[in-house]
């Protein structure tokens, strides 16, 4: 379906380099997870792919360069879930999720029956039906996150960009949200790029991990090859034990430095 390619992507803010020569290529149904310490450039990569910032180099979907496309085309092909979405408290969940249909609605038209049907299906699928009339401001953190993901899915875009999708969620809702994304990419061939801080979860769900440090990609590959205690110590400055489960799961366990 869709191929997302990064070639020598370089981003700088006011002369300060945030991302330096990022390369990658993702095929339909792949999940790439960007990891790395704060300020490593993970969000910048996602924002460049969403067409929100200027960059040099190339980001392209099916060979179409992002800046040459219209905002509408991008929104039909890329759904972006920001780290802290701005959710108007007094908007109902249905209204909020319907915003995801914006790229398909003509400038001055309003939502069609088809748009409502799409939203209804998504609300059902994300178990949000009973909240559809509730105001977004009255939802809990987990429900809000589901509403944001619902809005992104309503865009019916083949590429999904998630910036810290689980940062505000408890362990149960983290699993729920990620399982949902995983199911969708298996069923619909969604291409997913996410930035995450929880290394164990990142390794658990993504096909590939890319470790970024100061704007550069310093390690890439599957969880086993990227999540190693020496690597983590070098780039995160963390003292952590990496445990390999029998089923192949890689678990990162932080250690006390002064344990007396």
């Amino acid at each position, binding site marked *: 379906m869709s191929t997302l390619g990064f070639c020598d992507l370089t981003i700088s803010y006011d002369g300060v380099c945030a991302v330096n020569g990022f390369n990658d290529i993702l095929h339909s149904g792949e999940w790439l997870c960007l990891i790395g310490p704060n300020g490593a450039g993970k969000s910048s990569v996602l924002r460049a792919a969403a067409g929100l910032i200027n960059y040099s180099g190339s980001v392209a979907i099916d060979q179409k360069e992002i800046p040459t496309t219209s905002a509408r085309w991008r929104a039909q092909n890329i759904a972006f879930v920001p780290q802290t979405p*701005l959710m108007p408290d007094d908007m109902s969940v249905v*209204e909020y999720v319907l915003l995801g249909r914006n790229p398909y609605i003509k400038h001055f038209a309003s939502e069609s029956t088809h748009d409502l*049907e799409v939203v*209804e299906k998504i609300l059902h699928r994300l178990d949000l039906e009973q909240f559809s009339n509730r105001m977004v401001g009255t939802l809990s953190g987990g429900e809000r996150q589901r509403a944001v993901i619902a809005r992104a899915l309503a865009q019916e875009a083949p590429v999904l960009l998630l910036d810290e999708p689980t940062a505000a969620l408890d362990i149960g809702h983290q699993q729920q949200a990620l399982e949902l994304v995983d199911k969708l990419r298996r069923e619909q061939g969604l291409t997913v790029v996410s930035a995450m801080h929880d290394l164990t979860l990142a390794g658990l769900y993504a096909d590939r991990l890319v470790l970024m440090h100061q704007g550069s990609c310093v390690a890439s590959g599957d969880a086993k090859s990227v999540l190693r205690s020496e690597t983590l110590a070098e780039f995160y400055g963390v003292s952590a034990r990496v445990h390999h489960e029998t089923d192949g799961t890689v678990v990162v366990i932080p250690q006390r430095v002064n344990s007396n």
Partner: protein
Amino acid sequence: MSLAKRATRERAGTRFSVWLLASSALLITAVLVGTMIGPAGPQWWRVPLELLNRLPLVSIDSGVSIEQWNIVWQIRAPRVVLAAIVGAMLSVAGASYQGVFRNPLVDPYLLGVAAGAGLGATLVFTLQRQSTESWLIDPLPLAAFGGALVAVFFTYLIGNAFNKSRSNTTLVLAGVAVTSLATAIQTFILQRNNDVVRQVYSWILGRLSSATWGDVRLILPYVSLSCIVLLMHRRLLDVLRVGDDEAIALGTNIRRVRFVVVLAATLGTAAAVAVSGLIGFVGIIVPHAVRLLAGASYRRVLPLSILLGAAFLVAADIPSRVLADPAETPIGVVTAFFGAPFFLMLLRMRKTQT
């Protein structure tokens, strides 16, 4: 019917149509009362009778003389209609500005409309104070209209020249700068021409007392155009509520939407200001009252602001005529005097509800 469809229809449909009906009824009542009450003219209850009498195939002896009817039709009626148009325009422009700038405290004068119009009016008062009677068209509304548009044009020019990011803060700050500059020039001119201070002051406070059908004809095209364009943007203003970045990520050409909305709102506001002076408060209080009553979606806020804004200004104009009879109380004073407590009451109502 499916759940989501029912849900949207319930929210956007039933309740909204109730509000739409209620505010239309309020507007009609305000207009009727507005034409019935005034310091001169026939007794109030005779006016509706005469109105009926004027309908085809109806003949009622209302006892209204021709002179009295002239007072109603040539003095009161244009005033009421103008109040309705201006109130509607200021409210819908205020609501749109608040949407585009995502700031609830913004009013339609934000980008320099008021200061520009004030400067234009001041120039007319100082330069042309003796000879305007002989002019073919009254230069005052033209100068105010022109001044307002020039001021906003400069605001946009400065805002875009200095704006490297996509944020709209620069535009707002440019508006502040242009407003202060225009006010400074205005004050300077007034200092040197003390004799027109009173005229300018009364213009600034807002005036509907001299309204004619000519004024109505003058601004109606601009206001209608502006209202239609703004109403067409009501769904997009809802998309903007999630912030610039997300609105772009959802496929909105945010610069174009912002530019068109600001342009339309400014054009209409400048026209309204040109004939009515600076009537404050309406552009903030009416959209907020609508939000408190009917919800914050711009699909409801914009149409209801038009209706309730019109009703509010027509109603506020009634005390301004009779309160200090035979003198006029400036309409701006009345809108603030009655508007502020009403607004506080609404805020309190909402607090007890939630």
